[in-house]
């Protein structure tokens, strides 16, 4: 969209709702930005000369003679290397008391990558957390959310992952995060000495919720700039996508759209897919990996938000508190990394798939034994061994506060299996047993 030579302004608003204003105006373009008494708004509907504008920060106190000025452009961001280390709001304006970022203005929310120009992801990303590296290995170019109840330390886990992963850039999109969490992120990144790798777009709970809708596009347009122009490996963190979806439902409700499941707009799947599908391994070196947080309501994954997310993302990491040990773990049953098959045993040690599966199978046997125990049935000797194994496995591998590298995880897993079981009880291929078994 070209910038117009001069901006005409209007002062006759005909309709005002909680989120929109409508007025007669000529020559407005779809999705074009406007200022309504200084507040940023966007064209969402045009009927003849009647233009409907969605005001991001809400319409409280707007008068029907408010000054409306069209800006001639869709939401844009100044892209340059100078974004490094900056904290910005949903409009890309500084919130770190430094001057505005300079660079060529680029419209956000650009087109998607031609599927034939994508490359199959094949570089593992190690995080030091065994629940991820060992059981659900992440791959560069992947998109994966944490599914977590609100009381779980998902932002802390995500920060840990971000710091361990060897990314060139970490771009944080905070949607409806608390001020406390914002300070936590800032401090963590500063203490780790990586502030110059970070770019953050933040909408806190103090900001209007509809502004959140701009955050993912801001983040991903920045990510594409560094991944395409600079051929960098970019890690994108989005928290919390549930609050993003809530903002979508607010808007669709105010636009009189018919809600579908769980009061969410019918387009929820497409809206989320447009964001997550930006994760990509480009033909060159550049890649965008997306790690998101989707908070759940008491672990309910059938709700429209986690459900649609699960169909879009390449797996999910399920945070859960283990009642036996009191540790927060990455649930080995409900978590999944769809792309791990591309790297485990190929980019990691050959025994990885076998020992990983054996541990999960034995852990499953343990949960059966646990149910048996709870129902008051007598436990066999094998049952008892699986329970003992599960406890050690949880404490020394699954717990998210354990940090080790890949090699150590594999060795630890063999050690635990060897301690409690005989090789024939594990179903591990003979060749691997001969090479790696530890008594």
């Amino acid at each position, binding site marked *: *969209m070209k910038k117009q030579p001069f901006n005409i302004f209007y002062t006759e608003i005909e309709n005002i709702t909680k989120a929109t204003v409508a007025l007669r105006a*000529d*020559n*407005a*373009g*779809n*999705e*074009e930005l406007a200022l309504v008494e200084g507040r940023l708004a966007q064209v*969402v*509907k*045009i*009927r*003849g*000369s009647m233009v409907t504008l969605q005001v991001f920060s809400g319409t409280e106190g707007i008068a029907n003679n408010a000054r409306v000025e069209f800006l001639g452009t*869709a939401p844009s961001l100044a892209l340059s290397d100078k974004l490094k280390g900056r904290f910005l709001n949903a409009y890309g304006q500084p919130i770190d008391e430094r001057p505005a970022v300079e660079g060529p203005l680029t*419209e956000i929310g650009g*087109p*998607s*990558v*031609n*599927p*034939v120009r*994508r*490359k*199959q992801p094949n570089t593992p990303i190690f995080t030091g957390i065994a629940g991820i590296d060992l059981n659900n290995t992440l791959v560069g*170019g992947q998109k994966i959310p944490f599914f977590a109840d609100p009381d779980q330390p998902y932002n802390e886990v995500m920060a840990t992952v971000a710091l361990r992963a060897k990314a060139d850039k970490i771009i944080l999109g905070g949607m409806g995060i608390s001020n406390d969490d914002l300070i936590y992120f800032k401090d963590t990144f500063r203490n780790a000495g990586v502030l110059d790798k970070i770019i953050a777009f933040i909408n806190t709970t103090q900001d209007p919720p509809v502004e959140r809708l701009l955050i993912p596009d801001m983040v991903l347009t920045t990510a594409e700039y560094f991944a*395409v122009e600079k051929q960098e490996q970019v890690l994108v963190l989005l928290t919390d996508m549930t609050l993003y979806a809530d903002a979508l439902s607010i808007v669709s409700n105010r636009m009189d*759209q*018919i*809600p*579908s*499941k769980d009061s969410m707009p*019918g*387009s929820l*799947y*497409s809206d989320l*897919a*447009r964001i997550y*599908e*930006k994760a*990509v391994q480009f033909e060159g070196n550049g890649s965008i990996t997306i790690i998101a947080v989707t908070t759940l309501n008491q672990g309910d994954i*059938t709700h*429209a938000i986690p*459900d*649609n997310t*699960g*169909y*879009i993302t*390449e*797996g999910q990491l399920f945070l859960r508190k283990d009642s036996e040990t009191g540790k927060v773990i990455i649930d080995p*049953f*409900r978590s*999944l990394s769809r*792309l791990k*098959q591309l790297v485990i045993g190929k980019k990691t040690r050959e025994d990885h798939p076998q020992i990983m*599966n054996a541990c999960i199978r034995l852990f*499953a046997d343990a949960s059966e034994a646990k149910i048996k125990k709870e*129902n008051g*049935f007598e436990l*066999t000797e094998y049952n008892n061994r699986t329970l003992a194994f599960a406890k050690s496995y949880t404490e020394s591998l699954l717990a998210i506060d354990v940090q080790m590298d890949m090699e150590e995880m594999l060795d630890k897993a063999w050690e635990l299996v060897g301690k409690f079981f005989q090789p024939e009880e594990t179903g591990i291929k003979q060749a691997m047993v001969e090479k790696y078994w530890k008594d």
Partner: protein
Amino acid sequence: MSATGKVKGLIANLVMIEPEGAVRQNEICFLETAGDWLMGEVIKIEGDTIYVQIYDSTRGVRIGDKVTFTGSMLEVTLGPGMLSRKYDGLQSDLDELEGTFLQRGQRSDALDMNRNWDFKPLMKTGEEVVAGAWLGVVEENGLPHRIMAPFDLKGHARLLEMAAQGTYKVTDTIATIELENGERQPLTMINKWPSKLAMKAYKQKLRPFKLLETGIRTIDTLHPMLEGGTGFIPGPFGCGKTVLQQAIAKQAKADVVIVAACGERANEVVEIFTEFPELDDPSTGRKLIERTIIIANTSSMPVAAREASVYTAMTIGEYYRSMGLRVLLLVDSTSRWAQALREMSNRLEELPGPDAFPMDLTAVISSFYARAGYVTLNNDEQGSITFIGTVSPAGGNLKEPVTEATKKAARCFYALEQRRADSKRYPAVDPIDSYSKYLEYPEFQSYASSSVGKDWISNALEIKNVMLRGKEAADQINILGDDGVSIDFHVEFWKSEMLDFILLQQDAFDDVDMFTPIHRQAFMSSFLLDISRRNYTFNHFSEVRPFFRKLINTLKQLNYAEEGSDAYEKLLEEAKELSELNVEVSNI
């Protein structure tokens, strides 16, 4: 002279147009904005307002932008050279588009207009020509690609001129016919067809009767799919829908495979792009990609083109069927298509049906499934389209509109079960809830007993029964405890576990196990049913598990062994011996 018009309103990708001239429902038009030509389709006409859904981003579209109508509906371009191509939903060749990103309004030709084909005529001048008649043939990736008369040809035409054998481009005239009204019509190798209409240039549609071999035991043995049949795979995320569908795409005995990735992950089509050029087609020795056409409208590509993508795929399927070929069409996932319909219906402010889907969802899905089938062509040759769609039920709940509507239309139901997937029992097709209606077809029953295996159908029913009894036994054991039920319950349960582990579960990543030929499937089911019919005796319930575990282990190794190899013979012997222990004396 085609109509033109001007934009007078819009919401998202629904644009209202003030027309000048006559416009027809479903007509294609182009909207010019900021130098881009955006394609769209008329979806509603109301007074002097034309409602058009634009297949692209409408960012920046303004009142007064110019619209040009084309006079025709959304058409698919058909001709030699489609195999191994990767199209978007509107049939642009993705490889031919420039740049890393899909630019708005960018399109490319569906066919290579410059390639030379060795054309052989199949008809002589003076002969009578009907719709879809085989005028000539070129070779496309080893397949005889018939060059056909237009599919909308009315009545009987006469062949006036026929090109001699030689090399031609698709745009060259290869024949001229005289229509019934005396008009002369030159023909090239290119046909066009409006994708929303079913292609009916055949004599009759038959009830399917031939097995479509997939090498997947839970399908072939238990819930067989037939050539020209329809089926669907619903399942929550993470249950292996896509892996199962890709296994079918790789292994099914079909001449042409069309995969429509409709609103799903782009990385999944990248997997096909990466793997299919490497994998061999066991029946022809060529690479899999050579028999495959991919229609990719992945989830972040324009939503409106999702609907178009499934129709594009079906139309290409009908075209190859008209050549007397066996076509397999896979759509992943039909739910995304239904969601696209929902978004548009919502914008049109139509009264919603259940879950805000449009009221005619069931009808739309049914008439789409009805385009598949086994047909006798006008020249008495036969061809088929087998159609399998996946459904992604919201929340994994099968009582939702898309699953229910599809259940009415499809004849096979492959229900993927979360619990099976959680315990890594892949493919996670539930043996009890799933069904193939074709087991009840007398046509298939007689075909199966003569050409597949004498006991094929009775075995399938018996296996299902053993699985059901095993499930009931397991329920009882869970309620009453291991020693609260008689030992027979444990035996029943473990017999079903044996069938589950050896027949139903299959390793899609193992070179031998991934594909089981029909005769091997027949042998294994008879062998296992033979075991399950025996009366085993044990002194204590705790003896049952180790006995069957050991047997299952041996049989599992057998599944991994190449048929006829030393290992295979040895394991089979071992399994026989193991299975004869603990049998009641009166039985031997």
